[in-house]
């Protein structure tokens, strides 16, 4: 069954696959994860703030994003972002936004909903006594959050945040629907150019498997090391 395989096609396309494809995938993952954690933390704080309009808005946003398929959200933002851009800059026509920017905005906003749920659990895991102690020291809300609650919440939730980032790394392959050249997109373009679907897709699967397995192994090691013994 493997007699017709041509692994030369994989070898000759390695610079393209990793130099362009994997760099794109990793850049998108890193930027979207950073943006997602920041925006997600804000959403979590809004949701826990107890301020009427604020927590309703955060809840609605998170629930809506979590009930939609990522592919649909990718399409939504691909068409919506040019209009939002036009509205923000006051231009009469939809502005041109690159597919990469569009994908970055999509993944940041989409993953923020998932990161928000993790951070919400993280903030809630900090005992009430700590907030009370911070307030007794005369700290305001911002100081309490920045100096007491969030550092511990991040530390407690670090393994979950990283696991979600691995999921994000896998999900970025869906930019395929916008014909972007991420790792899978690059593999697919070579596959179609050379008529070598079997070799290229098997190789792509192998690379994703190796990266994710190694990453989740590291996360487990880290989890054992950073865990706070109570």
């Amino acid at each position, binding site marked *: 069954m493997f007699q017709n395989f041509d692994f030369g096609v994989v070898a000759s396309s390695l610079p393209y696959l990793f130099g362009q494809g994997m760099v794109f995938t990793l850049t998108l993952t890193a930027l979207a994860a950073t943006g997602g954690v920041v925006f997600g933390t804000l959403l979590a704080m809004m949701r826990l703030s107890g301020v009427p309009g604020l927590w309703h808005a955060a809840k609605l946003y998170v629930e809506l994003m979590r009930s939609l398929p990522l*592919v649909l959200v990718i399409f939504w933002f691909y068409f919506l972002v040019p209009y939002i851009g036009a509205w923000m800059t006051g231009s009469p026509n939809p502005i041109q936004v690159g597919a990469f920017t569009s994908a970055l905005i999509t993944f940041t906003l989409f993953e923020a909903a998932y990161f928000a749920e993790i951070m919400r659990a993280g903030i809630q895991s900090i005992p009430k006594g700590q907030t009370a102690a911070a307030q007794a020291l005369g700290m305001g809300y911002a100081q309490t959050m920045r100096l007491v609650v969030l550092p511990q919440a991040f530390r407690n939730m670090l393994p979950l945040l990283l696991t979600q980032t691995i999921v994000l790394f896998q999900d970025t392959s869906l930019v395929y629907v916008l014909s972007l050249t991420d790792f899978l997109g690059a593999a697919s373009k070579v596959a179609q150019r050379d008529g070598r679907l079997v070799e290229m897709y098997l190789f792509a699967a192998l690379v994703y498997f190796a990266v994710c397995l190694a990453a989740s192994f590291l996360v487990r090691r880290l989890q054992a090391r950073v865990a706070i013994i109570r």
Partner: protein
Amino acid sequence: MNYTWNWGIFLEPSPEGTGTYADMLLSGLSWTIATALSSWVIAFCLGSLIGVLRTLPSKAARAVGTAYVELFRNVPLLVQMFLWYFVLPEVLPGSLGSWIKQLPNAPFYTAVACLGFFTASRVAEQVRAGIESLPRGQRMAGTAMGFTVAQTYRYVLLPNAYRIILPPLTSEFLNNLKNTSVALTIGLLELTGRARSMQEFSFQVFEAFTAATILYVLVNLVVIAAATLIERRVAVPGQR
């Protein structure tokens, strides 16, 4: 914003010649639901089996279960979809491969198999967590009653474990439902794909996507309501 809204578009005939754009989206919805339900059958049965394997005393069984879960969790769904659709028919023996390629509705069967095996790895993790969350005494009590391992699982461990993991299983079912949209890449005419083609035919981008969004949210609400109902029906009186 100079976007021309036209909500009447749903009642206009679609260029496919059968029915309106609304019919087109609803047929997409029915494919989404059919795919989600069929793949859930595979995911639930296989996932339960793998989850049980991971809790058995036998080391070999646990290794098989772990290997399955790691394999299917660490490859992106889209890549798995391509492997099932483009690669599997090529690497199978000739006649079997061409039989698969000639199947009517091949994208549907491929998507069902792919999502089934993918979601099974997630269901397996939940089943394992459910069984491991039970007190050790339950397994021992089963053994003390003279149950075989199979009987212990059938009558003691699984009925309890399933009740505990019902909420996470519901969210896995919803994930499975959302994941059906990935099958648009292999040509399944499901809801997101239909909304996308409606946008291509009619240029009414936001109407098409708004309708799809509302349909997804409605299906989500129905599933959550059904899960709450099931949870109440199967709850053991007096427990918790």
